[in-house]
């Protein structure tokens, strides 16, 4: 008698996502206000859906070239040039992927041999470490700190570099902290990468959701074009998470390497999503800007509200997350979000889901309706009061 077949060591060792764990708690509960969602509450703008529907009617239902529809790659090239001042050839330097998620997986498999290291500043998107592990690499994490506004500091980067370092993986504006890096901040990082010959994988999926200051594309920095792979996608800025579409831009040899894996893994991204994305790039500015303006208002309201109820929160400058401090109330992040869920029915993700250094914090998505945000703040305020009373009676 033997059990099910043995799984690979890699899968056995892959830690379950902290998000998944929390998700299992939430399902089945009623009246929960969820601040736990990493996606917009808007649906995809109608003109984008309409373009996809029209394409289906015309019979556009087949595979596309591996790299993606040429007209989409041309639109991406024009967008990269127009917004960030970086030129890519659509024929050879752009690959359309099944979300940034696929791009991250491809690049790790393309770069890493067993034991190779990728530097990953934390807290960060849950898939970063996993992508490295799935490719047999070793994620070397750097803890960023609230005192530094969760920016990556050049000295910390330098200290993490070893002879096995293959790449640095960064994502700013950041999920879960909302931190951004200014051009000066990035220049200091670029200098270290040049000196140590480190490749930079820059996940810029939240670039258009920058509310203060200007987003700088890493590849636009001096000397960085040849050593940067930029990832971007449609999920966040155009409210298109379910379409599963993203892209990577970079040096030809890297795009070619990604494409070799991509061609065998998925062949191409879904054609209707590619048509929709082309429409988004060509005519999506207005809707996108309206959504960004709305997030910006919610950001101000929500972050002020958090500070007012006694959850000190660093002002996020990008993405749609607030990352308030909760540790001073005497619970771990996990306990805090668990009790907040059960006692006040507000779902927010413990900071530790995004790296050990997220302890003491909570990730709250403000891509949630204004009324719900206000109600969530009321409930969270009541919960903070409860914890304070518990603390007071324990002390007396």
């Amino acid at each position, binding site marked *: 008698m033997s059990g099910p077949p043995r799984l690979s060591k890699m899968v056995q060792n892959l830690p379950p996502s902290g998000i998944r764990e929390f998700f299992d708690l939430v399902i089945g509960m009623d009246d*929960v206000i*969820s601040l736990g969602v990493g996606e917009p*509450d808007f*649906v995809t703008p109608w003109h984008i859906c309409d373009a996809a529907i029209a394409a289906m009617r015309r019979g556009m239902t087949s595979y596309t070239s591996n790299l993606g529809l040429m007209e989409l790659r041309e639109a991406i090239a024009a967008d990269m040039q127009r917004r960030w001042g970086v030129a890519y050839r659509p024929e050879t330097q752009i690959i359309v992927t099944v979300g940034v998620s696929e791009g991250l997986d491809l690049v790790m498999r393309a770069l890493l041999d067993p034991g190779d290291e990728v530097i990953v500043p934390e807290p960060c*998107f849950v898939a970063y470490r996993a992508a490295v592990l799935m490719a047999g690499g070793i994620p070397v994490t750097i803890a960023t700190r609230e005192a530094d506004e969760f920016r990556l500091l050049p000295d910390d980067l330098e200290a993490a570099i070893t002879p096995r370092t293959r790449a640095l993986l960064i994502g700013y504006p950041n999920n879960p902290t909302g931190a951004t890096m200014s051009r000066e901040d990035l220049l200091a990082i670029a200098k270290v990468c040049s000196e140590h010959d480190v490749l930079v994988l820059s996940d810029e999926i939240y670039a258009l959701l920058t509310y203060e200051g200007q987003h700088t594309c890493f590849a636009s920095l001096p000397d960085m074009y040849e050593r940067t792979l930029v990832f971007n996608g449609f999920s966040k800025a155009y409210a298109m998470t379910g379409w599963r579409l993203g892209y990577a831009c970079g040096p030809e040899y890297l795009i070619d390497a990604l494409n070799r894996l991509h061609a065998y893994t998925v062949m191409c991204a879904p054609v209707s999503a590619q048509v929709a994305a082309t429409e988004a790039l060509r005519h999506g500015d207005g809707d996108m800007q309206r959504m960004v303006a709305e997030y910006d208002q919610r950001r101000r309201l929500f972050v002020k509200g958090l500070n007012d109820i006694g959850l000190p929160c660093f002002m996020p400058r990008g993405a749609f997350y607030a990352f308030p401090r909760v540790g001073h109330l005497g619970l771990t992040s996990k306990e805090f979000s668990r009790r907040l869920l059960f006692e006040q029915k507000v*779902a927010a993700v413990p900071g530790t889901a995004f790296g050990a250094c997220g302890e003491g914090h909570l990730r709250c998505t403000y891509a949630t309706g204004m009324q719900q945000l206000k109600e969530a703040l009321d409930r969270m305020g009541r919960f903070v009061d409860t914890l304070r009373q518990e603390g007071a009676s324990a002390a007396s």
Partner: protein
Amino acid sequence: MLDVLRILEQDGRVPAAEIATRLGRPLEEIQQALAEIEARQLIVSYGALVNWEKVSDDRVYAFISVEAEPEHGRGFDTVADHISRFPEVHSLYLMSGTADLQVVVEGNDFRAIARFVAEKLAPVPGVRSTSTSFVLKTYKAEGRLLAESGGDHRLAVTP
């Protein structure tokens, strides 16, 4: 000012302090803008968008295309002014195209509207002809979808 108007257009009940927070502006500046908005009547009134089809069915709307006789030097203004003063008239527009005026009329039932057209609207001096279309169902009004929305399809927790 435009930002303030946009917020109030969406929700007329947002207090000044919240507008200030959302826009990241000092409260005094918003209060001043609101005073100016009201003084200049940029906001005509603060009402609610009621979905009457859900409340009861004793309210009926009709869109009426009116051909009218323009007046020398005043165009359609006299006849439009006359029509607009009837309380049954919900809105009134001067149009391009075949009809000159578009009148939206509100009544308790179809007969009340038919009576209004025959006895009040058609006899207005300058009205040449009317063509009445009744509203059977409202899908969208004032920029808002009135049909049940699809709801939030997102999972409660995602990365």
